[in-house]
């Protein structure tokens, strides 16, 4: 089957969808469009620098471009460079897989104080995303609010000593920032009891490798549910771990009431089981979920569409990944979804040869392609420092410049 499909967002859900579509229909033209000049989205800028094994999934996505014939159009921001309507009219089907890149705000008094940092913002800065803010000063007593894998990721990275980043792609800026931190305690606070915490046990187990920490927590309750037992066992095994200088204190089942402080964060007021207390804090990192950055009108589109239709939003318009589901589910779950969505798209596809397809990108002077990404990839790997597998190019402008030298031996 020929036909032209656009996927907005070249992160894991978009790439898995392209892979699934081209497996089912190798003659399709599948074009992945991304606001960044480089592909792979969350795999490159969200997955932690010290989780290279997780990032290895990009080898599959590379093949989707290199062998299955998917094409990449980078540095194309829908709503700035082209409208969604322009893309939709140029393709037989369009899929929105742009993810969710903004932090859900902390809706309690003081939640807008300057030392309250969202996990997406911090993660992007640690991963040297081109639009990232400067890494902030967390002070001696940061508090992490949230009990999912993102919270544990940040906890782990903040606690690692420099040698524990060997083999990662943590950049020189973030490396220096971590080394300069003078963290004495990190409190990680969750609303739910330990048994209902959202992190995967394996993420908790990983913390037992860290040399810099000593862990304290109230011994968690017990449970009869097998999944909960695994989580509680992992926490039990972690309790008391280590003799390092950073104290990591896990707190469960407490409700944040207010961020304390007039002009800067001094603590987090919480309701514990029987009383209120203030957990002293020099900064607060929120890992309480993500939301749309407002691009692509997600909320309107999602609200208008009936759910449970394989991600269909409208005629010839579909959604995938977090853009479709909201911020839950892992990378492999987006793979399973992609297979269903691909089948649905193909079953409904009506091909109109008059549609313009990728010619709509011809007028965009700074649009990057997959060859450009390969050039960036070579340069980044070639300039990696000792103990690192890659050194990212950190500015959009430089990424575009390197991409334009594609195919050249620099």
């Amino acid at each position, binding site marked *: 089957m020929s036909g032209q499909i656009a996927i907005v967002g070249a992160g894991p859900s978009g790439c898995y969808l392209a892979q699934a579509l081209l497996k089912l229909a190798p003659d399709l033209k599948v074009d992945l469009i991304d606001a960044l000049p480089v592909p792979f989205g969350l795999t490159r800028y969200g997955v932690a620098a010290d*989780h290279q*094994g997780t990032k290895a999934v990009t080898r599959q996505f590379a093949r989707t471009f290199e062998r299955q014939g998917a094409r990449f159009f980078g540095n194309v921001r829908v709503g700035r460079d082209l409208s969604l309507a322009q893309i939709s009219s140029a393709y037989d089907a369009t899929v929105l897989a742009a993810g969710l890149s903004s932090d859900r705000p902390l809706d309690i008094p003081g939640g807008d104080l300057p030392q309250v940092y969202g996990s997406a913002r911090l993660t992007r800065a640690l991963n040297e995303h081109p639009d990232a803010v400067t890494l902030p000063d967390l002070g001696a007593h940061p508090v992490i609010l949230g009990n999912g894998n993102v919270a544990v990721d940040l906890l782990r990275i903040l606690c690692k000593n420099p040698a524990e980043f060997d*083999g990662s792609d943590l950049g020189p800026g973030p490396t220096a920032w971590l080394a300069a931190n003078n963290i004495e305690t990190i409190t990680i606070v969750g609303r739910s009891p330990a048994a209902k915490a959202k992190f995967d046990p*394996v993420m908790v187990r990983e913390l037992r490798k860290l040399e810099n920490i000593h862990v304290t927590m109230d011994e968690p309750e017990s449970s009869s549910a097998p999944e909960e037992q695994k989580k509680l066992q992992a926490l039990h095994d972690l309790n008391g771990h280590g003799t390092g200088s950073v104290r990591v204190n896990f707190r469960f089942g407490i409700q944040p009431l207010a961020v304390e402080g007039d002009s800067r964060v001094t603590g987090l007021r919480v309701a514990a089981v029987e009383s209120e207390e203030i957990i002293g804090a020099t900064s607060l990192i929120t890992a309480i979920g993500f939301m749309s950055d407002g691009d692509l009108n997600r909320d309107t589109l999602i609200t208008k569409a009936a759910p449970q239709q394989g991600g269909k939003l409208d005629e010839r318009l579909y959604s995938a990944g977090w853009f479709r589901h909201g911020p839950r589910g892992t990378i492999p779950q987006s793979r399973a979804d992609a297979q269903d969505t691909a089948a649905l798209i193909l079953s409904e596809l009506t091909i109109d040869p008059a549609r313009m397809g990728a010619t709509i990108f011809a007028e965009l002077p700074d649009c990057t392609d997959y060859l450009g990404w390969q050039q960036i990839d070579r340069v980044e790997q070639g300039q990696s420092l000792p103990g690192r597998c890659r050194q990212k190019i950190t500015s959009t402008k430089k990424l575009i410049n390197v991409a334009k030298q594609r195919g050249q031996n620099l």
Partner: protein
Amino acid sequence: MKVSVLYGTETGNAEMLADDIRSALCGKHDINCINLADLDPGALSSETFHVFVCSTYGDGELPASAKPFAEELARTGDGLSGIQFAVFGLGDAEYAETFTHGSLKLAELLKSCGATQVGERMTHDASGDCLPEDVAVPWISEILNQFPVHSKEM
């Protein structure tokens, strides 16, 4: 010799490796690739040599596509005598405690049901520097060389 590469995958990496093994050996062997999700243990044949390629997910668990197959094996508990297999495990040494446990559990299950493992279980570390196909292809070629030569049936 008929060879079946049977893969258990969660993110697709094991599927990709199974496909690489098939591509590398298809000139020499009558070889196919099957997702364990689409295979019943009863369909394993003593006429075929089986290469299991299996990742590890979560806390040392089997990947999603291998789970129903493994559950069926555990339920029957035997019936695989005469079945020969080799096993290759994908994992991530960042999670040292459970590194490649998925493939380990699968191999133990197969053996407990009477199947015979040929060669050593080989593994690959996703956090390492080498590519899985560069480890797996020489390993399986070596194992298959132990068998009398059957040219590919024309």
